[in-house]
């Protein structure tokens, strides 16, 4: 570890956290500099994460905080999954914070940037930690900063969404804490690897109850049906840059936590059917609710529910292929949905309305934004040659490779969801390009700081979509890491 001190996973958490608290001080020096601090922070994070990534593919890095050897003390587990998601978080954070430089101009700017940094710090912490109470703490950092960011604009809708999110979210946190308490009471440890080693049979009632509490608690943030009622409100009322991160990062991280708890701590191997059905229900309800929306951001939010359902479905196949497909779908959803929210942000900003009908003729006025939006929708629907297709391909392959009839029926239902999704997204595309040319108000193209992140996301979507082998190299070790509990225990406890 000494020879690569810059490549320390702790930095991924420490740097944004430190910068977040530095912002009020730097704000005294210059107001403008504050806007660029998240950009710098996540640029650093992105570089570090991508540099660490090749190392962890071979061997996970276990960081012992304070020098305590696990299971004592807190440790970070920077494995392939953790680093994959950490890089994703850093890159998305970097792009969204560039976008926010010009986008966030009203209100308490400094506080926005602090909260934004904290949100992603929390997310990074969740994916890297190897300790369940630490998981809870980072989870709370993530949740509390997102409650506050949802209400950032101080509008009626923002406040309403924020309090509803807060109420449901804090019930979730309490449940998570109950679950952690129950586990600690039985096994006397908080270390994930140690817990995993001690839990032999998760169906034993006392262990099972703690698992259920943890799943429910984490499931609220992960937006699994029926725990996702907060999501459409919160994602549609937040400022678009926040929606991008909430949809692209926060729910994925929540889902990661669920999966990590299930796979690694409890070693659940046959929770197939229940979660699969839940995933398919989430897909169908999400897509069907999105279909009838008139508000563009609400539609995107419901579509996120559908995508989460697909990811849940993929994970619950729980084969190497299925888990890799689920992770891939996470990546492509993050890229696609972040892109869509960023585009929608400026479209809404220019038209002043979230109604889909107000987007008429925007393809002429904001050609680049509209093009990016179109590519984003194509990717989310899963049309080639964009990432969404590659990940959907992998998931369907995983479902069919299993050979069970039930799975084949369920994948059919998922595809029905995809068709509904296609129908409403294509309607929006028609609205953007082929309706209402008569509107000649002075809408103009988004500023460069917004276009750069959009175009970078588009290029990611196209490149990964055409050459999925790039990411497949990370997905395969990541999937085997999630599935191989014994190796996890071994690498932490030695």
């Amino acid at each position, binding site marked *: 570890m000494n020879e690569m001190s810059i490549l320390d996973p702790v930095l991924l958490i420490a740097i944004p956290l430190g910068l977040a608290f530095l912002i009020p001080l730097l704000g005294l020096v210059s107001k403008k500099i504050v806007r660029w601090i998240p950009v710098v922070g996540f640029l650093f994070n992105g570089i570090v994460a991508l540099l660490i990534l090749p190392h962890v593919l071979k061997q996970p890095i276990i960081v012992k905080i304070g020098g305590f050897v696990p299971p004592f003390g807190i440790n970070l587990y920077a494995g392939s999954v953790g680093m994959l998601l950490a890089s994703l978080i850093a890159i998305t954070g970097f792009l969204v914070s560039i976008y926010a430089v010009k986008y966030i101009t009203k209100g308490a700017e400094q506080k926005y940037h602090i909260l934004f940094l904290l949100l992603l710090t929390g997310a990074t912490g969740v994916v890297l930690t190897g300790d369940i109470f630490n998981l809870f703490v980072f989870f709370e950092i993530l949740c509390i900063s997102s409650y506050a960011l949802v209400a950032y604009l101080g509008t009626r809708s923002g406040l309403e969404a924020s309090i509803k999110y807060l109420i449901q979210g804090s019930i979730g946190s309490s449940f998570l804490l109950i679950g952690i308490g129950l586990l600690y009471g039985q096994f006397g440890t908080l270390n994930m690897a140690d817990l995993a080693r001690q839990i032999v049979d998760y169906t034993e009632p006392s262990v099972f109850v703690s698992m259920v509490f943890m799943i429910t608690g984490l499931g609220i943030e992960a937006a699994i049906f029926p725990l996702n009622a907060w999501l459409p409100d919160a994602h549609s009322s937040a400022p678009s840059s926040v929606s991008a991160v909430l949809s692209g990062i926060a729910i994925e991280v929540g889902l990661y936590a669920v999966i990590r708890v299930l796979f690694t701590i409890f070693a659940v191997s046959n929770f197939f059917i229940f979660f699969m059905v839940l995933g398919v229900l989430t897909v169908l309800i999400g897509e069907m609710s999105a279909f009838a929306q008139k508000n563009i951001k609400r539609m995107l939010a419901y579509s996120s529910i559908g995508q989460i359902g697909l990811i849940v479905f993929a994970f619950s196949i729980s084969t190497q292929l299925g888990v890799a497909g689920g992770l891939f779908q996470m990546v492509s959803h993050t890229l696609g949905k972040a892109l869509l929210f960023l585009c929608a942000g400026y479209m809404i900003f220019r038209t002043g309305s979230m109604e889909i009908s107000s987007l008429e003729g925007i393809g002429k006025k904001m050609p680049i934004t509209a093009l990016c939006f179109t590519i984003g929708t194509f990717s989310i629907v899963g049309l080639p040659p964009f990432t969404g297709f590659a990940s959907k*391909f992998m998931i*369907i392959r995983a479902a069919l490779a299993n050979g069970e009839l039930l799975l084949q029926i369920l994948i059919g239902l998922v595809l029905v969801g995809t068709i509904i999704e296609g129908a409403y997204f294509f309607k929006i595309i028609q609205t953007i390009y082929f309706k209402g040319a008569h509107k000649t108000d002075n809408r103009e193209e988004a500023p460069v700081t917004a276009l750069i992140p959009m175009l970078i996301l588009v290029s990611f979507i196209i490149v990964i979509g055409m050459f999925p082998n790039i990411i497949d190299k990370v997905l395969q070790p990541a999937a085997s890491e999630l599935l191989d509990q014994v190796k996890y225990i071994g690498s932490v406890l030695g």
Partner: protein
Amino acid sequence: MSLELLIMFAFGGAFLTYLAGKISSKLRDIFALLCSVALVVIVSSLYKVETTITLYNGFFGMPLSMRLNPMAWFFAIAIVSSSALVVLYSMSYMKHRERTDYYYFMLLLINAAMLAIVLSGDLVSFFISWEIMSWSTFLLISYNRNAALPAGIKYIVMSLIGSMCMLVGIISIYTAFDTITISEIVQHMATATAGYKLFLLIIFSITFGIKNAVVPLHTWLPDAYAESPSPFSAVLSGMLTRMGIFGFLLIMFVMVGAENSLHMGRGFFSYHNILAWLGAITIVIPTFIAMLQNDAKKLLAWHGIGQGGYMIVGIAFGTSLGLAGGIFHTLNHAIYIILLFLSVGAIEYSTNGLRDLNSLGGLFKKMPIAFLGGLLGICGLIGIPLTNGFVSKWLIYKTLILGKAPFLAFATLLGTWGTILSVYKFLHNLYLGQLPQEHQNIKKTPLAMQIPIVILSLTILVFGILPGLPLKSINAMIVSFGFTPLTVSIWGISSETGTLNMINIFSILLVVVAIFWLIFQAARKSTAVDQYDNYAAGAAIPKDKYNYTVEFYAPFYRMATPYLRDIFDMLYQKIARFTEFACDNIRKIYTGYVSDYIIYIILFLALLISAQLKWSVF
């Protein structure tokens, strides 16, 4: 010339055309035309070349490949040449329209995608190209705004249903055989069970049936054809829809193999027989629905569906003769339907977008070239001897008669009869009769629009008189499917059961025409009158236009209209409305009350615990 270059040229040309359009529209037009012509040159230089190349392994390590064989070449040349003609035509047609850069980009992208479909050597690149074709088609169908928007949605939703079926099929093949390369799948197919083959046939038939508009999966087509810009309607009907035929050939005769797909099931309920009957229904009903149309493009669209039925019947019958007929009909249909759409497009262009059959007429003198196109086009459509449609229809009739399928043969003849009735109305109401006053000074048809019409008209005659030209490469394709080759000469086909020799027909006809001409010359008594000089059986002639074809076939309409509704379209509309209703109501579970949401959370917790206690799901 290698295949990589061809594909790169096709896709790259599309992008570069778009960029060129940003510089100047002239440059773009010329560039687009040059690209299309160059593609024609490249593809024709690849005649009789058989090769396979691997493009790259980047897609999950699957080898994405391109392969050229007789079937691919045949479709490729049809695609690129029709594309070149349409691009040339568009240069004038699209001149003063909005978003022309975008139009050309999409048109060329669609052509590139179609080219990639027919050349793809594995199922994944097949699917990727198929999807690129689908969404770019959607974007171009919606181009005309207003009524085109619902048509576009209808198209893309049906197309997505088809693609999802195909995706499931492809991935199931991949998991079953662990390969996606078509040539390897063929070898593995021998080990597959009959049930699995049937599953593959059905699931791919849904996809290709939607694309080829086989009843009952045809409902997207009339709206999509009618609402697209006319040059694109031509591409859509000529080549794009016929990708379905390509698909049927691929799945039935290449992948599953003729000996399997023609022996699937027993008696009437065998796969290919049901397909043939669906084809027959596709011929009859849409052709008669076409008769009721008053929109020139809708009329052609319904005929497009009907003609697709002939191809399906020919292919599904699965003999050398039938296959040749079906495939040749695909080509012929492409030629005359493109011609017809281009002719209608010329009228649309000259009359500022009119295509209502009841308000047009008498354009014969004003637009002679368009008339020529329309006349030869409908001759081909009906299948009048010496036009190309005759040969392929003859082959199909012959197949059905030889195959002892009198009912199918009757259905195909009935279709032809319906075609005659309806295209007469088409020809008359556009070109003959009186010219309405407001069309006295219509725009001239520009040269760029005349050239493709003339070329296609000539092709109809050439292929009608010399059917051996295309039949030779069709024969090569049939042989590659494992059928016995036909004896093809340049003038026609000879077989033990009957010989088609166009030169004989041609010479007989020539003699007959000469005799008639001589008779008319000898007894020439006709005088030229003004077209307003009308005889109306003694009744007073109205001052304004006297259009005696407005109520053409009125008694027939009264009789047949109740039966000629598109019941499937109505059914799908109902399903769509129901889905919309369901979607609108299911979201009401998000009531807006936080207390409800908390109840959901508690319920979820309770459900997890009770599910474990009761059924131990975990």
